[in-house]
């Protein structure tokens, strides 16, 4: 019988295929081998913990349309092989007019398994877990197995990573593992891998062009002249093309909306001239606000200022500079997603310098134990004492598992809205409607929506600087456009306006994808 099978032509395997298969099997088994099994166990814990955090945030109506709902709409569009539109940003708003992050299309297949925004939380937990391996592998030859493990554990539960998870989802989640692997590849002189990963990094966000230029500078110091020049030009060229052509092409105002450096000048050229001609003034801008000083301290003190001695800190420079020189106070903050991509850079740079110090001063070899120990101690203390930037505190104290009457009312009202209709909703309710309605924020779909929800327990209807309303003004606005209150519970008002033909809405505001799934909703 075995001979019969072997005789079939389609069952014949070549030596090359066998070797390829063996390599794949070996790669798949490696994380479970004696070398990495503890790290793999850590990643399993990371996925479980961070998926739970995301899921609980969703269930407790703490996640928001900005940005979870936006990414959910975009990934759902990708999963249906459609252009990345987000109704939260505006009807027929192509997300490439906002930021350039084609890499998130790679998440589309996840929605074929489960069509739900919570899938993005799971994906982000997986991406964070993937970044643990390079941090451990970078630290192990320098510090040894257990100190390296402690460093990896401290890194993955450090506040910048927790801040990202607490922000629901963001494209920068891809940058965290990519940059971690790039540093490992640079360290191990795997330049082909550096090149490939750098190219992929450019698909994470437009400003990753600057990070790739920083990678080129590191390679320059390694005297990899050609590769350094190539990556530098690639990073610069990509940034210029994406912000000068691609984003303006899709943007409704025909421009790139995130150049907000009034202190430096109206264009990148003007900014460079300012920085070169006024280096001290530029330096002063980096520290001219309490929030900026807190950020510097929060990033560098827990790692003992060690990263400042490593060449790898160059990779953090463009991200930090672009934020601290910006006019947007939100980007100076320890909150949100902004700091996550700095975490692997600073931790790996700190390990790099710690190793060099130990090598130079052999008496300090014991620092390989107390150094990582101190770092983890700050993380544990932070989780216990500083819930504002260590959101795992809520998980540890059990607060994340509690629910309130208001959450019950939010869920009840969300359930009252039928599928396949067009809705304007409070920002906190938006992610609960994205997978079955065309939903945007209050006041964004005036001509089309039939349903609206306004939560008077919130300060505003959401949407940040893009224009939002106080709940009262939002209600007046909707009532001025013919909406009538049909239900009210716990200060949440559900409004409805009968569908009117001739409103100009395509198929009752349903995108073709939703219409095919849920009908017109009329």
């Amino acid at each position, binding site marked *: 019988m075995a001979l019969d099978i072997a005789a079939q032509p389609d069952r014949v395997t070549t030596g090359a295929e066998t070797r390829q298969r063996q390599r794949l099997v070996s790669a798949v088994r490696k994380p479970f081998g004696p070398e990495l099994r503890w790290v793999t166990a850590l990643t399993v814990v990371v996925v479980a913990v961070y998926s739970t955090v995301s899921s609980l945030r969703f*269930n407790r109506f703490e996640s928001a349309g900005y940005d979870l709902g936006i990414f959910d709409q975009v990934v759902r569009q990708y999963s249906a092989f459609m252009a990345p539109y987000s109704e939260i940003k505006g009807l027929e708003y192509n997300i490439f007019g906002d930021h350039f992050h084609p890499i998130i299309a790679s998440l589309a297949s996840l929605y074929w398994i489960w069509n*739900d925004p*919570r899938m993005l939380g799971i994906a982000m937990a997986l991406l964070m877990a993937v970044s643990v391996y390079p941090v451990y592998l970078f630290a192990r030859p320098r510090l040894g197995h257990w100190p390296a493990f402690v460093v990896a554990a401290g890194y993955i539960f450090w506040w910048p990573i927790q801040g990202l998870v607490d922000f629901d989802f963001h494209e920068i989640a891809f940058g965290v593992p990519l940059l971690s692997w790039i540093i490992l590849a640079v360290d191990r002189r795997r330049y082909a891998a550096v090149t490939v990963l750098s190219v992929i990094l450019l698909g994470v966000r437009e400003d990753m062009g600057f990070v790739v230029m920083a990678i080129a500078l590191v390679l320059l110091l390694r005297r990899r002249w050609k590769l350094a020049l190539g990556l530098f030009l690639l990073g610069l060229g990509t940034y210029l093309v994406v912000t000068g052509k691609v984003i303006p092409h899709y943007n409704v105002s025909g421009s790139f909306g995130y150049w907000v450096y009034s202190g430096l000048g109206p264009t990148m050229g003007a900014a460079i001239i300012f920085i070169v001609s006024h280096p001290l003034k530029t330096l002063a801008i980096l520290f001219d606000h309490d929030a900026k000083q807190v950020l510097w301290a929060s990033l560098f003190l827990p790692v003992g200022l060690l990263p400042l001695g490593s060449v790898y800190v160059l990779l953090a420079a463009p991200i930090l500079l672009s934020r601290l020189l910006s006019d947007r106070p939100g980007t100076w903050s320890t909150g949100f997603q902004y700091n996550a991509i700095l975490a692997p850079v600073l931790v790996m740079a700190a390990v790099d310098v710690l190793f060099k110090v130990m090598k130079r001063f052999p008496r300090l070899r014991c620092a390989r134990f107390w150094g990582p120990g101190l770092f983890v101690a700050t993380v544990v203390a932070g989780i216990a004492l500083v819930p504002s930037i260590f959101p795992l505190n809520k998980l540890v104290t059990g607060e994340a598992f509690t629910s309130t009457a208001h959450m019950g009312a939010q869920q009840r009202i969300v359930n009252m809205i039928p599928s396949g209709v067009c809705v304007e909703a409070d920002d906190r309710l938006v992610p609960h409607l994205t997978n079955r309605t065309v939903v945007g924020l209050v006041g964004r779909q005036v001509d089309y929506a039939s349903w609206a929800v306004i939560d008077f327990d919130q300060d505003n209807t959401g949407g940040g600087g893009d*224009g939002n309303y106080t709940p009262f003004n939002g209600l007046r*606005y909707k009532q001025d456009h*013919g909406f009538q209150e049909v239900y009210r519970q716990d*200060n949440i008002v559900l409004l409805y306006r009968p569908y009117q033909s001739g409103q100009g809405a395509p198929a009752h505001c349903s995108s073709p994808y939703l219409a095919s799934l849920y009908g017109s909703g009329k």
Partner: protein
Amino acid sequence: MIPILSPAVPRHQILRIAAATSLLAATLSGCANEALAPLDVSRVESKTPADSISYAAGVYGGWWDKAPLPGQPANLVLYSTKTGRVVQTVGSPDPLSAKNMESLKSPKWAENLIIVMDPSANSVVDAFAIDANGNPANRSTRAVKTGGYDGWWNSTPADGHTAGLPVETVQVNTDTSQVVDAYNRTTKITRVSYTVVPDPAWPKHSIVIIDTSTGKVIANFKINADGSPMGSGGRGDVAR
């Protein structure tokens, strides 16, 4: 060839992966706790905003009579631009200050309005047109004949902050390329010198709002044949 698709991979292994994926999908879908209970709105009829305002024995009834929601102003005056007097009060409003009167007597307002103001915040929280007998009027068809359209571009938010709002706008009918209205936030003047350069990209049967400082269209909306905005009851688009 991708190893997993290789003929060397046993079929039962592929089936096992498929089964695991299906189990994962079923488990995750089970996490969704939404038991939909759509509200029956079949008896809800279309109403104009004016329908929600009543008028009897010289008293206007509206949202201000309902139990106030958090953040809803409770002490209001209803001011008639026709008579130039307060016609009704709600709660215990502060006496009108000079600043309040400046807002109420602005040339922005038409002469047939009831303006609902929160004097303590000096904010106009509502306004509706009335007919000659004082009854709330559904005046959507009069908007274009007598003036233009109100919106965020030419009004002041309730919190009084106008940062980021355009200083001067013109409203252009895209079918006629005529300026139907304009407003300068600084001078409060509605006569603005502006040369229309029609753009083929403008939507038909619409009004485009142009920020004169940039020449760019900052808002647009479709209008009916009579000039009333589509999908709007009209009260929000009170004529000036």
